[in-house]
């Protein structure tokens, strides 16, 4: 039970990162690798601000820092015409130094003993805090989903969706496609950094390496969600991504619990989940083709 609740809590917090990935990968249709860096950036910002006694401000600083990181990638891509994947890797690499610098040159920073968003909610509830933490994570996650779902129905949101769909059409509707790309990248990375900040406060430490592989974990969540809910509207897509994140954590927790895999297998499993999910359609097509071939052959041998 504790394992399940813990997974749901983690899933809800990581869900915000999955939402960020959904914005860049699915809505903007642009593989953004800044994420690995901006997740650690959110953690580092949150750790420093939390230690200085501002647990709530920490979350907003992380959002802002993440948005700036996304904006940097967007500007490299649109202004300097650097390939989006390379632009993301460049910013991610640069952020490694920034993150170490923020944490005073140390690879990890503990915030144990400081007030966090979670410890303050714990003190508000009289009973043991688990319920409070789950509720807080749920409220934050749902709030972000509602804000994003509403945003993608506004004119700007529509323009961002169209940019991922058909950039030429956006330009001919007199909208600056470079601007919409930068805004979407900033939003996506703001979500990722917020998720990093919350995880930092949740587990009471920040580590410069914890962003590694986040793109894949986020993508895995998005794909799991899509497998269950299908690819429909943006609102359902956002909900599906969050749900996928929770499910991913539960699967992972139980896989590790039954000692099927050692804990360090986490990232390999994530990569495998994504590979299986992405190869689904082509495997399905190959199976169908095989079935068809067998049918044709058996007809031929009948005659």
């Amino acid at each position: 039970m504790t394992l399940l609740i813990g997974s749901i809590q983690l899933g809800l917090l990581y869900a915000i990162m999955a939402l960020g990935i959904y914005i860049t990968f699915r809505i903007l249709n642009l593989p953004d690798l800044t994420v690995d860096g901006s997740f650690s950036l959110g953690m580092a910002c949150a750790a420093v601000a939390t230690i200085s006694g501002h647990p709530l401000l920490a979350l907003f600083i992380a959002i802002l820092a993440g948005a700036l990181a996304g904006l940097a990638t967007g500007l490299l891509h649109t202004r300097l015409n650097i390939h989006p994947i390379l632009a993301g890797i460049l910013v991610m690499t640069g952020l490694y130094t920034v993150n170490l610098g923020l944490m005073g040159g140390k690879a990890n920073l503990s915030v144990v003993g400081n007030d966090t968003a979670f410890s303050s909610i714990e003190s508000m509830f009289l009973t043991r805090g688990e319920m409070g933490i789950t509720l807080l994570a749920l409220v934050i996650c749902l709030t972000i989903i509602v804000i994003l779902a509403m945003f993608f129905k506004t004119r700007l949101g529509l323009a961002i969706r169209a940019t991922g769909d058909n950039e030429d059409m956006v330009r001919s509707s007199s909208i600056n496609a470079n601007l919409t790309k930068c805004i979407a990248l900033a939003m996506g990375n703001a979500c990722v950094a917020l998720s990093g900040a919350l995880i930092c406060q949740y587990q009471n430490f920040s580590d410069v390496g914890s962003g590694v592989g986040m793109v894949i974990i986020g993508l895995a969540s998005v794909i799991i969600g899509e497998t269950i809910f299908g690819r429909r509207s943006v609102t359902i897509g956002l909900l599906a991504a969050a749900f996928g994140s929770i499910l991913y954590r539960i699967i992972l927790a139980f896989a590790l619990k039954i000692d099927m895999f050692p804990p360090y297998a986490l990232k390999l499993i994530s990569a495998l989940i994504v590979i299986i999910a992405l190869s689904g359609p082509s495997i399905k097509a190959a199976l169908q083709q095989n079935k068809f071939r067998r049918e044709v052959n058996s007809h031929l041998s009948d005659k």
Partner: protein
Amino acid sequence: MLDLIKVSKTFFPGTANEKKALNSINLHLDPGDFVTIIGSNGAGKSSLFNAIAGVFFIDSGAIMLEHRNITTLPDYKRAYDIGRLMQDPMKGTAPSMTIEENLALAFGRKAHKSFFALNKRDAAHFRELLARLDLGLEDRMKTRVGNLSGGQRQAVTLLMCTISRPKLLLLDEHTAALDPATAEKILKITMDIVKESQITTMMITHDIKAALALGNRTIMMDEGEIILDIKGEQRSNMTIDELLAYYYKERKKQLTDDRMLLA
């Protein structure tokens, strides 16, 4: 209303592939003009449109729209005043968004101020416009554009191009990828919209008969130059044979290519 002054553009200058796409083009359009443009492949027709729409910047010369110099204006800013329809029906719409959402995006600045992009007043307006197409699309406003046929998509794109009342409409063989019956229908819708909203229009076509029949002026292009510009009586008296003969006399070659419709 549109003035091109000595507009030139060369692709791949200084290489073996150097191509003079536009060679010192001068052109003046009056408000309400409907100009049809003909010419063989590589004559510079699409390059002319690309230059006007701002897909690329020209090497020399100037482009004026209603006495405003737009030569260095980026394409998305020109799009406020210039609507463009391409040959490929897939190019003008966002396939994973609904008809309604596509129209709302194109309506842009002219739309009612509202928090969400879709609102009832605009929806009623869209419905009315779609009903006029007579394709039954008014009852499918929540359908994704990707699920429509090529002709339906081109009709939606046509609405999107004209919904915010641009000053100039560029039609780049916009019916060429459609089957004859659909093409005729789209062309009719185009003429109706242009006539009703009095938008100055330029239309590239490979159908010489249509080029002479539609609009009030015809331009023939070859090798980046305008070699014929007729209107009024001269145009109404012009036959297809005379046009072809003129081209042969001017250029010492036949005006034909595989897609040209001569009758």
